[in-house]
């Protein structure tokens, strides 16, 4: 018996129906195996930059901050021997044959992608196991294979791990994880919110619908982890994930299609109102003397999911028309304000998204230092308040950038594209989540 009465149809990024009559619970991260796999791979997957390590050892320039350690340079051909190192790494990381360990050489030996087995994750409680396992294995593999003497071995450690533990983060490390160290998280449960919009953009190859979906998955999983999707709050979060992230009932796609050619943020607000009235989510409460109609709803969480979907549509239309990501914060802010004035109902996340839009405009327009919208994630001091629904819109906008950003996804997140790029769970999450949802439906 499903927990919630809500039933949705899931549509893909081209507006094609891929799953019918899906109970809301079937897209819950607690039930849906595709989402679980995305989360699992996110924490288990790391990349070793052999080219970077080789250069660091050869020049002594390592651990970031312009540090060069002279006199202990090590000139060893790591890239050339990538296959051998990969073999050694696998030996060290793998628990038993067939445990899901992956060690793959990429870019002709410049990088090695490592997926640490679940067994190791399960034997600890921190997601950093992915990083520490990979880094330690790489360090040992290099020392062993090239027979590095004891008094130079510390250079290998520094080249691979970076300056940690003198620093809190793995500063200057040549092993990269898409997740930050826990100490950099704003609070409990923020790990999956600490993924830059640009990383997601790179993972989905700039497909705005898929980017929205993947960001929504990360953010809503974060909501569970933060304790924001427990009890009565769960349904609201799932509705947002469904409509905003997974194009439930094709609302997002239809809104964009309707407004794509000539529409504005304002016309998206109009289309959303129309849809919400048609679907019976909102209705007129009273008409004021000026003729202004005050709308009300009997299902505020659902209205919120509708509003969140409209927000992404507004971004897709306005920022998409500009092919310039810088308009993201402004669009978030004024979309919500226009919607509130239009309907008399609260904007996305009950006003929080609008508030974030104000701060984010400030922080992403060189008024307060540099940095474009692509660098934002849900762990940022100005974005963390609108949980679950804000970052998907940011990702959507960044996917649609035509090359205006200094901090583009290509510049900041190329490595992660290489690491996760082949995994369909990350490049086409809409299809994968829908397929798994169908399976869950049968069980409910």
């Amino acid at each position, binding site marked *: 018996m499903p927990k919630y009465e809500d039933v949705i149809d899931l549509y893909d990024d081209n507006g094609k129906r891929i799953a019918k009559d899906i109970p809301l619970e079937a897209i819950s991260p607690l039930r849906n195996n595709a989402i679980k796999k995305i989360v699992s791979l996110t924490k288990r997957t790391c990349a070793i930059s052999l080219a970077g390590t080789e250069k660091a050892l050869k020049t002594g320039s390592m651990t970031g901050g312009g540090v060069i350690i002279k006199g202990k340079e090590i000139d060893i051909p790591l890239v050339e021997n990538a296959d051998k190192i990969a073999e050694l790494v696998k030996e060290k990381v793998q628990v038993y044959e067939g445990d899901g360990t992956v060690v793959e050489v990429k870019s002709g030996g410049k990088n090695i992608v490592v997926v640490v087995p679940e067994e190791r994750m399960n034997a600890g409680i921190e997601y950093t196991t992915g990083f520490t396992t990979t880094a330690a294995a790489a360090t040992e593999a290099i020392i062993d294979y090239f027979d590095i003497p004891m008094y130079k071995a510390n250079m290998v450690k520094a080249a691979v791990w970076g300056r940690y533990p003198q620093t809190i983060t793995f500063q200057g490390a040549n092993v990269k994880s898409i997740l930050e160290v826990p100490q950099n998280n704003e609070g409990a449960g923020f790990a999956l919110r600490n993924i830059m919009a640009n990383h997601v953009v790179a993972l989905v190859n700039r*497909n*705005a619908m898929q980017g929205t979906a993947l960001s929504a998955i990360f953010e809503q999983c974060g909501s569970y982890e933060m304790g924001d999707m427990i009890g009565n709050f769960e349904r609201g979060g799932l509705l947002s994930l469904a409509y905003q992230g997974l194009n439930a009932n094709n609302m997002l796609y239809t809104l964009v299609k309707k407004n794509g050619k000539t529409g504005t943020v304002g016309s998206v607000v109009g289309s959303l109102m129309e849809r919400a009235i048609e679907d019976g989510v909102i209705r007129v409460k009273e008409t004021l003397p000026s003729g202004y109609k005050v709308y009300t*709803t009997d299902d505020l969480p659902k209205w*919120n999911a509708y509003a969140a979907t409209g927000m992404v549509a507004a971004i897709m239309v306005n920022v998409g028309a500009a092919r310039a990501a810088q308009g993201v914060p402004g669009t978030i*802010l004024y979309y919500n304000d226009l919607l509130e004035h239009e309907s008399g109902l*609260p904007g996305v996340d009950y*006003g929080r998204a609008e508030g974030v839009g104000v701060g984010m405009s400030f922080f992403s327009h060189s008024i307060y230092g540099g940095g474009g919208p692509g660098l934002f994630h849900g762990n940022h001091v100005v974005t963390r308040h609108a949980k679950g629904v804000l970052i998907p819109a940011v990702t*959507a906008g960044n996917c649609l950038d*035509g090359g205006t950003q200094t901090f583009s996804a290509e510049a900041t997140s190329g490595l992660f594209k290489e690491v996760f790029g082949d995994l369909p769970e990350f490049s086409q999450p809409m299809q994968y989540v829908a397929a798994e949802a169908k399976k869950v439906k049968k069980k409910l």
Partner: protein
Amino acid sequence: MAYKRQFYPGSSVPAKNRRRYMDPKVKLKKLRDVAMDDVVRIMGHRNPGEDYKSIHPPIEEGKEPECPIRKLVVPIEGAKHGDRVRYIQFTDSVYFAPISPYQRAWMYLSRYRGVDTGTLSGRQIIEVRERDLEVMAKEMIDNETFDPALTGIRGATVHGHACRLDENGLMFDGWQRYVWDDEKKEVVYVKDQVAIPLDRRISVGKPDTMANLRKKTTIFRADGVDMRDDKEVTMYGLRIHKLRTLGGYQPWKVKGE
């Protein structure tokens, strides 16, 4: 069912004006015709006649990343050409300027696409691909939302929106980008929006009378129309505040509020 947008509550003059400016179906009155080359000069991003500089190669259909949304959303002209993103910024006086910065944002996003806009206390910036910006900027300078005396085109040092007017009724500008032509009774720009002197004087015409401005403005003021006297507007603010609060607490319990 075709939904008809209602924009903003209220029966007062500022409320009605707000709706008017926001409604893309309303064609705003053109009050003057400043030559496009002069608009380009005042903005100062390029010389008239000069080619547009680009920040990325032109967008060609079929060569964009594989994304269904890109196929649905048509890029604006400047985006197609890979233009730089440039800006124009207006400062609006609190003394019954035709529009105030915040309503500019509402208006821009209801009337134009591909716009990045931001409001600060007394000014409003619009950042758009250059060739689209020029078209927008000309419209904004020519139409009824611009008053030569009470609207300033100011890229930096925008101070003045809340200052007393000068003896000629002009909004204060420490950089004096525009001056009063006492013979013609017109406002004349002598510097561009960042105060680099212009090589010619550009007239933006005669300021409106205060009596007319009070009828055109979107600004609620205690000595004009007090916002508290428009019950619908006051009700709206309280309503949103209440619903945001209730939604932030237990949204599932909010029914028919």
